């Protein structure tokens, strides 16, 4: 259907884009094996010592732990609140229904720095009023706020695709609300929950801007990276960590793709490291 020229151009364009996407990552990977600490190009290869240095870095593991704590906390909160909101919006008609979705998307739609300074002033205010301190909880609260919409979008998209007749049939068969929820609804939305949860986790794990304003002295991985890329002797360590994380992240991305399945074009959240994963045919299903 497309002319041969068009096909050729499309193929070329595809390759160009893929090269554009991956060349910087490859360059990054090279620097993880750089013998010197200098950032000059080209890197002098080849050494593995930075991986050992990364392991021994006194701040890295607390930062990693901090990131995991924050991401788990934020994801759990987002799962609960996002699902609640999705059910409310899907099942009921009420005043301000559209406003809810709009309000939920605001933390992610507005520039991170706006959210950051708003939350930072709120924490200051909280400090003077009831002694609120920076801690992992302020980070979790900040992250959860923009993760809610990610879960919300996933769940509501799935709910829209789930026939309501299933719920009715369940009630007809004598199940009460809880049982219907447990045996009918949850299985239907389970993969949407997982996909949303993974997305939220990824968003939180990589977040830097809002985290800078809400973490105080608490270390997360992005904060550790931010601090260390400004220290000349730490930069190769950072590159080594980055490479390891990049390779490890293949697992959740692949998992998320397989799990999300189906054809709904799930709304793409806006923050770095987020992947609007289940955009269409991941499995051999194909469109339509």
């Amino acid at each position, binding site marked *: *259907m*497309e*002319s041969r020229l068009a096909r050729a151009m*499309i193929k*070329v*364009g595809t390759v*160009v*884009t893929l090269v554009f*996407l*991956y060349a*910087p990552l490859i*360059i*990054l990977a090279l*620097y993880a094996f750089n013998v010197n600490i200098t*950032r*000059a*190009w080209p890197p002098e290869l080849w050494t593995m010592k930075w991986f050992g240095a990364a392991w021994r870095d006194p701040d890295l593991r607390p930062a990693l732990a901090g990131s995991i704590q924050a991401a788990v906390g934020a994801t759990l909160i987002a799962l609960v609140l*996002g699902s*609640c*909101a999705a059910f409310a919006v899907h*099942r*009921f008609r*009420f005043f301000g229904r559209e406003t*809810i979705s709009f*309000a*939920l998307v*605001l933390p992610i*739609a*507005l*520039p*991170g*720095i*706006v*959210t950051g*300074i*708003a*939350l930072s*002033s*709120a924490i200051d205010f909280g400090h003077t009023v009831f002694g609120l301190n920076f801690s992992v909880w302020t980070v979790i609260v900040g992250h959860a706020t923009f993760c*809610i919409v990610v879960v919300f979008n996933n769940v509501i998209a799935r709910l829209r695709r789930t026939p309501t007749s299933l719920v009715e049939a369940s009630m007809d068969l004598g199940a*009460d609300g809880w049982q219907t929820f447990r045996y009918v609804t949850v299985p239907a939305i389970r993969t949407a929950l997982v996909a949303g949860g993974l997305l939220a986790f*990824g968003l939180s794990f990589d977040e830097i*801007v809002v985290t800078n304003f809400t973490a105080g002295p608490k270390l997360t*991985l*992005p904060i550790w*990276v931010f601090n260390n*890329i400004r220290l000349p002797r730490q930069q190769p360590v950072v*590159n080594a960590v980055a490479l390891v994380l*990049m390779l490890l*992240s*293949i697992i959740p991305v692949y998992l998320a793709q397989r799990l999300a399945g189906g054809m709904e*074009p799930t709304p*793409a959240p*806006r923050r*770095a*490291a987020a*992947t609007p994963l289940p*955009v*269409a045919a*991941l499995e051999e299903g194909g469109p339509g």
Partner: protein
Amino acid sequence: MAVTGTTARGRAARRVSAALFRRPGAKLALLLAPPLLWMILVYLSALSLLLVTSFWRLNELTSEIERVWGLRNFETLWRSSVYRTITLRTTGMAAAVTVTDLALAFPIAYYAARLATPRVRSALLLAVTLPLWSNYLIRVFSWRIITAGEGPLQSLLGAFGIHRSLAASNWAVWLTFCYLWLPFAILPVFAALERLPGSLLEASSDLGAKGWMTFRRVIVPLVLPGLVAASIFTFSLTLGDYITPTLVGKAFFIGNGIYNLVGLASNLPLAAAFAMVPVVIMAIYLTAARRLGAFEAL
């Protein structure tokens, strides 16, 4: 939990369930209250306070915020040409990044949506989303290395006879932004192209339209919501970012302006006022995007 209502707990559960079924309002309230309360208490109130602060002023002697209402901050933004320059520069950059990313996204999205086998399609989608999972800061930093003097970019340009370092220039910032947001552009365009019925394309060629005409008259109008949806990301992400211009560039963008007002001058009222600028721009953009159907294509 008991499957039937024979235990005391099970019976209580059924009673609650039945009550909720009869009172949908209560059920709605229970479902809606947690997320709504969260958003109001944690976020919307903080945001409103920020908005309100933009009307207050900073007492420069004591460095404290005085609750004296007025539009002086907005006057400062308007009168002082530097803020206008920064805003124009940022908006221009956002537009440039958007156009570039859409152009880069289209071929790969088209290939994945319409020309690739399912297995290749899966692989391409994986390949496109994988970079997003590497740390944002690191990716920006890799572009700092790439655009630095005597770096890979300069070598590449040298091959075309351009002997200039693009380090710390707006070109470098443009390239970096294009790189960072490209996956966000590809995915909505992919989704839109995927939904395009092939029959329309065939009909178009049956009617004698060549590739370009089909593209212009059939594909683009149908895919437009997806394109606009993609542009929302590239535009808004560029509008507020301050880390990339700091690491890779030299000129000030809106994000840098806001950050400096908070960090250097500790002038929260003026920072809040300046923060309203990208918010307003995005509000306008989102309204236009909604008209063009982008929200359905997200």
